[in-house]
Structures are given as structure tokens and as C-alpha cells.
């Protein structure tokens, strides 16, 4: 592990700094990301710049670089460092963050299983989207406003759109029906503490009278500290005499096997007593019962259980805000964030063998006062992130996570498909590969309920799903750009040719169009006279024959073929 020099002011990019000062600062001071951890190690075979740019774009934006950017990188007039900065300020990066956050919050959902009486059936999907996204949108908000990620547990506010605000009773400052997620507050007077005070969080992670919020407490430690009590190695040796509540209560207090978890869990539980149990039922009354923050809850818990709230043995007054502060100051919070972000970026099961690297990333994260962009920037500049192979210098552990390629996730494929064609499979607002578990799961995604982890396995179902995705968006391009007559400014694919001209008579134009598509789709700088373009051109002619002379249908076939290319799936 190498130590890091304290970083100068310049790189923290306080937004209130005048722009000229920021520019001067950047010129004068060495930024923190100039020497990312474990770069130039000589231990890894690295992707060439243009392919590295593709990997960065897929991971950070769920898109591909523009042809202009690729040409500038190939020509040496744009560096990948500059590209990273651009991507980290791109709107699409903030959308990617929602899915990165959901990988551990697991709150995104497609339905509202309770309280049917309280809303119109027709708005269930819209409501489910908003309720599922409240924690994810705070995550996004903190990054986009350059705020410390510790506010996930401490923010004295929440974020909401008008749908969520109406449902839970939040003072949304935007217009009625507004879809923008804005900083606001619950109106029941609850103390705000980031995700910990979000009703949506407790809707997703329910509790019962028997469970007494223990499941919720475990989800909090799992999400924020990577401390999943269910994964502790404990030895249980007990039976309940009568399975009475008092037996359970005694066991979790005195039985050594039970205490292995409950010694820490019960203290966290003590902080949650102002939150209601549930949700249960369909009625408005049950909604009202659930949607109440009980300020007396803490005292009630102490009276009933004769126990006091605590945080891993440290004293606490039982307020959510106190729990939030403890979590934010826990070294495991930043370490967990560093570990999770690294795992997300390298698509690997990161564990103790990467501890040295995680510690370095954790240090960068803390030096930046918990700014996520600084952490992600450091990760994508590591050799490990850019690697496609190893040299003889690499140890077995260092080689462990290196793969010849990454597998695109369903959410990335959805946004990449849109980026390349302007079309989505399913609705534009909620594309199938992002939101429909019946398509996401075969492609390696999860629903957050039954399946809660990604699979990066290369399965026939993944390939079949992506083939259908390619066909669906190729067909939409055919309808919109080839059969319709949109203005050229609205076209995404046919930016040079119309797709209607005779491919033999306009061979040069058609080949130039194919060349352009190769650059966008694969990041490969092939010219109109290249072998690759020639092969695809020949296929276009074959497809035209197969399609009874229809040029537009031949283009649809060619487009669906190009969108199924393994170079799109594996990057």
C-alpha cells in the first residue's frame, strides 16, 4: 500500500470558486487524479485508447463515444483523461448512477403491492417508479451537486418528484405534476437523515410485529457498511421452549449463538422505532397507519424491550439522525463505497484480495470529502480497469479479475441501443431492458426481490434477449427513419445516406454510411474502402435480393445484424 500526499485545494472543484480561479488552480496544482492508484504498473496489457474510450463510454454513460471524439482520440487531439472529465459531467452519467446505486439499494420496482385504495390503478407504474427511486435519486442528487456521499445517511432533506411528494406528503417546491426531482422535506415533522428517513425505503424493506424491525436494521448495515448479519458465521444451538415471544426475546439477549448477530443488530433496531411496521393491506386506513412517523417510538421501544439504542456498542439517543452520523463516520462506510464502485466498474467479485487497491481508493474518496466522481475517476484510471490481459509481472491475485472483455448489462444495452439508434425496446420512459424483469433477468439483470444480484454469465438467454432487442430497435428505425420522412436533424442512424437510394448506383455514399455505423457501433476506425465495410455492403446487397429488392428492408436486416455483433455485447 502506498501512502498518498494530501491533495491541494484545486481538485475539489468547489462550485462557488470563480471559474478563472479554478482554471488557474488546475494549471498550477497537480490534481489528485494525475497519479491514480496502480496505474503504469507494467502488470497489465491495456486496451488501446479508442477501445478504452468505448469501455469508458459504456460504463459511465451507457453509450458509445461520438465518431468525432474517436477520431480526435485516434488523432491525438483529445486525451482519454479529457474524455473522462466530459463523461463525468454528462447527463447520461447521472442516469447510469441510478442503476449503480440500485445494485445495492435494490429499491427500484415495477408495482405497488399495497394501498390500492389510495391511488388510481392507472398511475401504479408511475408511482412505483417514484417510490422505487427515492433513495436512488438522492444518490444521483449528491453526485450531480458535488455533495459528500455521506449525506446518503445524513442529508437534512429528501428528494422527490411531484408523484412521490403527493403519495407520502412531501412539500414539493416544483409545479403540480412536475417530474423534476427536487430537494424537499416530509411534512410530518420527522427529522431528516438521508435514506434513513425515507418512507420509500421502509416501504421496500418491510417489517412485522414478530420481526421488530430487525430485517430493516440488517438492510441498513448491509447497504451502508457491507455488514450483512445473515452472512456471519455463527453457531446456533437452541430450541424455543414454546416459541413464545418471550422465548425469542430471551434468546436474542442471552444465547451466545444469537448474540453473535443480535448484539449489534438490536442496537440499530432501537433507532427505527419511530418508523411504523408494515406495509400491510390495501386500504387507505392501512396507508395512513404506515405513513406516520412516531416521535414517541423510541421511548416506547425502551419501555417495552428494556433495551437502549446503540451503535455497535457505542451509546446513542436512538434518533435516526444520530444513526446517520454514526454510519457516515464509520470507516466501513467509505470502504464499502470504494469496494462497491470498484466491483461495478470491473464486473468482478471484489474481495479481500483487492484490499490494497480498495484501501487506496478509499483514501482518495475520503481525501475528496466523499465525492463520488473523484472515486470513480480514480477507478477508471487504474490499470486494472483498463486491462484486457496481464504480463508476467502480475501475481495470481492481480490477474484474478482481469477479463478479456466485459459483458454489457441490460440497462447499459437499453441506453446504448437508444444512443446508437434513437429507439428503445418497450416504452421510451421505461425501456424493457431497464425496467421489465422478464427481459432484464434473462440478460443477467435482477428484479431486486427474488433475484438481487447481477449475473455476468454469457448465456444463451442473454444472447437471445439481445438479439430480440436488436431486431426490435432495428424495426423501429425502419419505421421511423426509412418508412417515415423525418427531418435529418431527428435521424440518428441514417445521418449520411437516406437508406432509400439504390446501393449499387450510390455505392460510395452507402459505404460511407456503413463506415460511419462501424465507428459508432464498434469504435473501430474503418474507412469506406475497408474489408469490413465491403463485407457489410455485400451483405446489404444479399439482403436486398432476399427481401425481393426492397432496399429499406435490406437496411433493416443489416442494422439488426450490426446491433447483434459480439463487439457490442462484449467491450
Amino acid at each position, binding site marked *: 500500500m502506498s501512502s498518498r500526499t494530501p491533495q491541494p485545494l484545486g481538485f475539489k472543484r468547489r462550485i462557488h470558486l470563480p471559474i478563472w480561479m479554478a482554471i488557474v488552480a488546475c494549471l498550477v496544482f497537480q490534481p489528485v487524479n494525475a497519479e491514480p492508484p496502480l496505474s503504469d504498473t507494467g502488470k497489465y496489457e491495456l486496451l488501446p485508447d479508442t477501445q478504452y474510450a468505448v469501455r469508458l463510454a459504456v460504463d459511465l454513460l451507457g453509450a458509445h463515444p461520438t465518431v468525432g471524439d474517436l477520431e480526435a482520440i485516434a488523432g491525438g487531439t483529445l486525451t482519454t483523461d479529457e474524455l473522462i472529465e466530459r463523461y463525468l459531467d454528462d447527463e447520461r452519467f447521472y442516469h447510469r448512477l441510478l442503476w449503480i446505486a440500485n445494485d445495492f439499494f435494490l429499491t427500484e420496482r415495477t408495482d405497488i403491492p399495497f394501498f390500492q385504495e389510495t391511488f388510481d390503478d392507472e398511475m401504479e407504474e408511475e408511482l412505483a417508479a417514484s417510490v422505487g427511486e427515492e433513495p436512488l435519486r438522492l444518490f444521483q442528487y449528491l453526485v450531480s451537486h458535488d455533495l459528500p456521499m455521506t449525506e446518503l445517511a445524513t442529508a437534512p432533506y429528501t428528494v422527490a418528484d411531484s408523484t412521490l411528494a403527493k403519495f407520502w406528503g412531501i412539500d414539493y417546491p416544483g409545479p403540480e405534476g412536475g417530474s423534476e426531482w427536487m430537494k424537499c422535506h416530509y411534512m410530518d415533522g420527522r427529522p431528516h437523515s438521508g435514506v434513513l428517513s425515507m418512507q420509500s425505503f421502509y416501504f421496500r424493506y418491510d417489517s412485522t410485529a414478530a420481526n421488530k424491525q430487525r430485517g430493516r436494521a440488517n438492510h441498513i448495515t448491509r447497504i451502508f457498511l457491507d455488514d450483512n448479519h445473515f452472512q456471519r458465521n455463527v453457531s446456533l444451538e437452541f430450541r424455543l421452549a414454546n416459541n413464545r415471544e418471550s422465548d425469542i426475546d430471551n434468546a436474542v439477549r442471552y444465547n451466545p449463538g444469537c448474540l453473535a448477530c443480535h448484539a449489534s443488530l438490536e442496537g440499530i433496531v432501537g433507532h427505527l422505532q419511530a418508523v411504523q411496521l408494515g406495509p400491510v393491506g390495501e386500504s387507505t386506513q392501512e396507508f395512513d397507519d404506515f405513513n406516520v412517523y412516531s416521535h414517541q417510538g423510541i421511548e416506547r421501544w425502551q419501555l417495552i424491550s428494556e433495551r437502549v439504542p446503540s451503535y455497535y456498542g457505542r451509546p446513542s439517543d436512538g434518533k435516526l439522525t444520530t444513526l446517520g452520523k454514526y454510519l457516515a463516520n464509520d470507516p466501513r462506510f467509505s470502504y464499502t463505497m470504494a469496494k462497491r464502485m470498484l466491483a461495478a466498474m470491473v464486473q468482478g467479485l471484489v474481495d479481500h484480495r483487492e484490499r490494497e487497491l480498495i484501501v487506496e481508493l478509499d483514501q482518495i474518496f475520503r481525501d475528496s470529502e466523499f465525492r463520488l466522481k473523484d472515486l470513480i475517476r480514480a477507478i477508471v484510471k487504474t490499470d486494472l480497469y483498463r486491462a484486457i490481459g496481464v504480463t508476467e509481472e502480475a501475481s495470481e491475485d492481480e490477474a484474478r479479475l482481469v477479463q478479456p472483455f466485459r459483458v454489457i448489462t441490460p440497462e447499459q444495452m437499453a441506453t446504448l441501443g437508444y444512443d446508437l439508434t434513437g429507439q428503445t425496446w418497450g416504452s421510451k420512459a421505461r425501456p424493457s431492458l431497464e425496467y421489465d424483469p422478464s427481459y432484464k433477468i434473462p440478460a443477467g439483470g435482477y428484479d431486486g426481490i427474488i433475484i438481487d444480484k447481477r449475473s455476468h454469465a*454469457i448465456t444463451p438467454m442473454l444472447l437471445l434477449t439481445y438479439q430480440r432487442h436488436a431486431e426490435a430497435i432495428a424495426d423501429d428505425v425502419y419505421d421511423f427513419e426509412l418508412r417515415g420522412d423525418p427531418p435529418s436533424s431527428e435521424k440518428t442512424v441514417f445521418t449520411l445516406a437516406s437508406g432509400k437510394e439504390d446501393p449499387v448506383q450510390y455505392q460510395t455514399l452507402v459505404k460511407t454510411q456503413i463506415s460511419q455505423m462501424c465507428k459508432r457501433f464498434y469504435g473501430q476506425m474503418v474507412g469506406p474502402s475497408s474489408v469490413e465495410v465491403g463485407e457489410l455492403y455485400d451483405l446489404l446487397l444479399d*439482403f436486398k435480393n432476399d427481401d425481393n429488392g426492397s432496399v429499406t428492408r435490406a437496411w433493416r*436486416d443489416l442494422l439488426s445484424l450490426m446491433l447483434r455483433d459480439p463487439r457490442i455485447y462484449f467491450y
Partner: protein
Amino acid sequence: MDRRHFLKHLSAAAAGGLCTPSFHRMFAWAQQGQDNPHFFMFVFAQGGWDITQVFESDKEGLQTVDVPTGQRTQFGSNVTDTFWNDPMGRPAVTQFFQNFGDRTAILNGVFVRTLSHDLGRETVMTGSTGMNKADWPTQIAARKASDRLLPNLSLSGPNFPGNLGGVTTSGNTFNRLLFPSGYSPDTEVENRMESYLNEKLNGLLGEAMEMGHEGGRVEELDRGYLRFNEIKEARNTLNLGGGGGFTNQGLSAVGAFQNGISVTATLRAPGGYDTHGDNDAQQGNNFQNTFMGLNQIVTELANRPGTTGTGSLLDQTTVCLMSEFGRTPRLNGGNGKDHWPVTSMMFVGAGINGGKVFGGTDERQNYRNVDYSTGLPDDSSSIELATPNVGAALLTLAGLDANEILPGEPVFSPLLDMGA
């Protein structure tokens, strides 16, 4: 695996239209009796069933347990091997035990340690919670039959793929993906596409191997495409049927077993078993519908020839009925029953020590420890009957080393008749 091997696969796929030798071999094994797989069908009653409705037949007359209307009937050779049923309310239960009681074993007093639906499903299907372990059908399919086209069919019900998600296929999605309603290239065009794409895949594999990658991810890529092509080639024989419902799904699974496509399947039993109100009527109706479907499915298994050339498909198939937990002994104020951490399970068919009831609960429906040599309740024993022990038995039945997957967990072997 060297590059030549990949090229061989790829050229075979390209030159032969998509029909690779291994595809034919796979089906030939199944059809000519050279293969002897053990199939498992998991039926999951979601919500938590009331074990006094059928399985726990010894609670009649107790003040501590509310038992529904019914009668106790012996189905095994031992007088204590009985089930509980209401001939008026759920006649399908009696019919089932009359038909298949000698091939059926009941496990009572299985401790699941939780009252949470999510955790109960996970612990019953995987033996633990929060460990990201694959469920029993996935474990069996991945370890015994990963070369099948669709090793594990998750037609409905819970699915815990762990890190073995690649072997599981969701039936409804599969049909929608295999037979899309919108645009799809015609055969001529598709064949041209496949040839082109195989060349590109070959390039990708070649580049990866030049970087020193062998096996692992590269092999996975090769295998994934190979099976992908095989599935598309066999498209019309893989139609699992669009029919919904428990019985239709069960029959789809039976077809997938017989065709050599799959070795495990998971289905959800009809009805919601989470009866916090009106327990007896709802549970009774659910058990009637579940056993009615089960009669048809098991009868179909018994009537179809096995893939070994002798016996029936039931001789190669074990049907496992489970639920995430049981329900409280007493009715609550709404005539419902709440969650209880002790459940029952039922197993039918191949490798099962049929006509028997194992394990049990006491007069307050607490689990009782069992003697692992007889499978019977024994309060002097220090070993309980819990979900990992049942799982270990199923893994053993599948021919796997249970100790490798569940180290240190005793195998509940009385359930098994390995000589069958």
C-alpha cells in the same frame, strides 16, 4: 481448450446451418436410453401453508392446535403413516394418496428459522439466507446437466440462481423470446447473419486467446454461443407451450424432461397460502387445487416411458412440494393463522422412501428432533430436521456430494431409497 477446438465448433455451426454434432448427440442420448438423468420438479406453495390441513395428521383433539374438519387416513405400511383430509372439501388429496401414496413421503417438523416470506423462501430453497447461494434445482442442473439446452426451467415460483444464473431459464420469457411477435429476419437472411456473426465471434475469441486468456471467460463465450445456436435450431421442439396455470406448466416440464432439454423445473402451486384470515376455507381450496394438478402431473409422469428404455418417467423424477414456513397452531381473531417457523414437505417418485412420514412436531407444533437413522421423532436426539438437511438429501439423490456444497450438514437419508 485450444483455438482449434473453438474453430471446430464455429465452423460446424456455420457450415452446418446451425446444427452442431453435440446437439444431435444430446437428443440421441435421451432417446436411445444411453442417458440416465434424474429429474426434479419443485412445486412451491407460496405464502406458507397450514401443515394441519394434510401433512400433520396427529393433532386432532388437542386444545393447543386448531385442526380443520377432516379425517385421518393411513397411506403407508406403518399405522402412523397417515394424512389428514376432508373428503368433501378437498377430495383430490385422498385421490392422490390412493394413487401415489406408496411413492410419497411426508416430512414434518422441518425447522425454517424465520417468519419472513422472503427469507423463508430462500432458506427452504437454498438452505440458508443472505448467502447468495443457488437453490436446489439450480445446483443440481449446474452440476449435473449444464450441457442441456435449458438445464433448469423456472416456470413460476421462486428462483435463487446465486452465481449459477446461466443454467436457469424462465419459461414464459423463453417462449416470448423464442417466438417474437414483431420483426425477425427470415431463415435465409438469418443464416447469412449467423455466418457473419460467427466470423466476428471467431475474431473475438482469437484476440482473447492471443492475450493469453484460455478457458474461463473465453470458453464460456464459446459455449454460450454454441448453445444459443442449438436453441435456435431446435426452436420448434422447444416450445414450452403458452398455457398458463399449474397443471399446464407441470406438463411443460414433463415434456422438457422427456425431450432431454431440462433436468430440473420449479413451479408455483395454485393459490395464495398466506391466510391471515379465513384460514381453513382458503387453505382447503388451495390444497384441493394443488393436489388436483399434482394428480395430473404425476399421472403423466407415470404414464410416459422413461428415457432409460425401461420404466416410466416417474421412475426418474422426484417431485418436491415445499412452502416457506407453516402457520400458527391456533386460529387468530379473524379465523386466520399467522406465520410459524416450522413446516412440512412432501416428496413423490424416484429415489423416495415412499409410504412414510418422517419427523414431527409436539403438541404445540414445535419441531421435534429426529433420529437420523430412522427419520422418526426422537426427543433424546440432539439433531433437528432443518432445510439444509433436506437439501443435502436431495443433492445426494441427484448424485452430488452434498458435503461439498453443504459442509458439515447431516444428510437426512431416511427420506431416500437409493436402491430404487
